[in-house]
């Protein structure tokens, strides 16, 4: 039952629609003049919140599918990762367009001078190659191993995202700490499985440990 739900193409469609709910709500509230007294700040914060949430959800896929023995979950990872990229693009566009009014010099000044913007911007830029190489064609061209190496950049972005949030708030750091904890757990799990894998691996390095990477499993 669960298996058929997870492998159904309809489920993918439903997840896709669900990922669009935050932006739909934002547009709806915009139409109804309900974006708080400072709409630009509200849009910036909302799109930023959803970026870090989607990064956390994407990073949770691999641990969840291994712990719960649900390999089918991998079907959703690329889509979720691309939604993280979608929301960070909105976040960036809000800042550069609505906040900075496309004054690029102002933008560069901020990127150089303000460390929370520097790390946030870096995290955003690091996601661009991942979004570009998210297709099956790119996985083939790069080769599974190299592709996987490249896509580990998302760990860096996740950490930078949390730092960006932490440095940005004035005094109430509960929310950034919450996301920081989630990211820490997800990365710690990867580190732990890597350590265990290394120890239990036979001494000869010739044994192939992982199945070849394909668009679906990558």
């Amino acid at each position, binding site marked *: 039952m669960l298996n058929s739900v997870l492998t159904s193409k309809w489920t993918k469609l439903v997840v896709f629609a669900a990922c669009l709910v935050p932006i739909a709500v934002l547009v709806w509230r915009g139409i109804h003049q309900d974006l708080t007294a400072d*709409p630009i700040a509200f849009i910036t914060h909302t799109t930023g919140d959803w970026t870090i949430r989607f990064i956390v959800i994407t990073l949770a896929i691999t641990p969840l599918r291994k712990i719960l023995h649900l390999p089918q979950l991998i079907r959703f990872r690329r889509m979720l990762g691309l939604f993280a990229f979608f929301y960070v693009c909105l976040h960036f566009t809000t800042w550069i367009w609505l906040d900075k009014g496309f004054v690029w010099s102002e933008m560069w000044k*901020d990127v150089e001078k303000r460390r929370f913007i520097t790390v946030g911007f870096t995290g955003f830029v690091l996601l661009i190659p991942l979004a570009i190489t998210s297709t099956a064609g790119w996985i083939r061209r790069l080769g599974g191993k190299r592709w996987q190496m490249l896509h580990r950049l998302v760990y860096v972005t996740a950490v930078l995202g949390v730092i960006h949030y932490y440095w940005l708030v*004035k005094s109430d750091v509960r929310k950034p700490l919450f996301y920081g904890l989630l990211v820490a757990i997800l990365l710690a799990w990867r580190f732990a499985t890597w350590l265990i894998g290394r120890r239990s691996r036979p001494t000869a390095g010739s044994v192939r440990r992982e199945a070849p990477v394909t668009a679906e499993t990558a």
Partner: protein
Amino acid sequence: MLIRRQPDLTYADVTPKGFYMGRRNFLLGLLATGAAVEAYKKLPGLVSAASIGSVPVKLDGVVKWPGSTTDTLTPIEKVTTYNNYYEFGTDKDDPAKNAKNFVTSPWTVSVEGEVAKPRKFTMDEILKLAPLEERIYRHRCVEAWSIVVPWIGYSFSTIAKLVQPTEKAKFVAFETYYDSRQMPLGSQAGIQLPYVEGLRLDEAMNPLALLCVGMYGETLPNQDGAPVRMVIPWKYGFKSIKSLVKIRFVKGQPPTTWNMYGGGTEYGFYSNVNPNVDHPRWSQASERRLGPGLGLFTKKIPTLMFNGYGDQVASMYNGMDLRKNF
């Protein structure tokens, strides 16, 4: 051998009926106390909102102050739903939700310290000390947004003159009300409470420094600092302390909440609006004016030195390096 056992309990050990009844009464009493405590906790909700001062009421006899700005007013809905009042939560819309039942009546403000006539003022007295003026000020938040608000009140110097500061008084320390029962979110704010602020004596005596009791024709809404607050239009908003309970004239520069936070990383004592000195995390050169409508594509406006009140206040800082004393 027969062992005669003494009975463990004699009649004398029987608990007297009075005690035993006492226990029952004690339990009843305990229940009643619990109920009373619960009722006390709910008190703000049980008592009618008007009698505890929770709903703004119209202020009569307000005269228009001639110095008001002609900038477009920020709609009242924005000024009452976009607040920094960490005692009621750190999100901008928290105070409007969480300060609804804040009890602001009865209220007294204690004026003390280096003064000849220390005194406690009731709200009724404060409302009648001087004619109420409507003053439309620009209000610039340190977070680079600004609003235009028709405040109601009179110069702080009115109250100062009544208590007669002595020669020793060089600064004024202000303190906000704090009650963890009414402000349970205060403990999560990340700043030390009660909130404290301060001004140099001459700053406090500047006619622009407003002791404020209302806005938009009515008494102050809770989330905007009811029932009485300060408004210092040439300084960043956090200097305009809300829900005042204590005013203390002092010899030395008093500590302020945001100075103490993070080892002074946020702002200095003066915190004058200054487009040339950036916040550690953002530029103060321009600001987003919160006006009518969504304003998504409204351009930011340049921030003015002393928020545009230089003519009235700049002379107080002659010879001071405002980059150092930010």
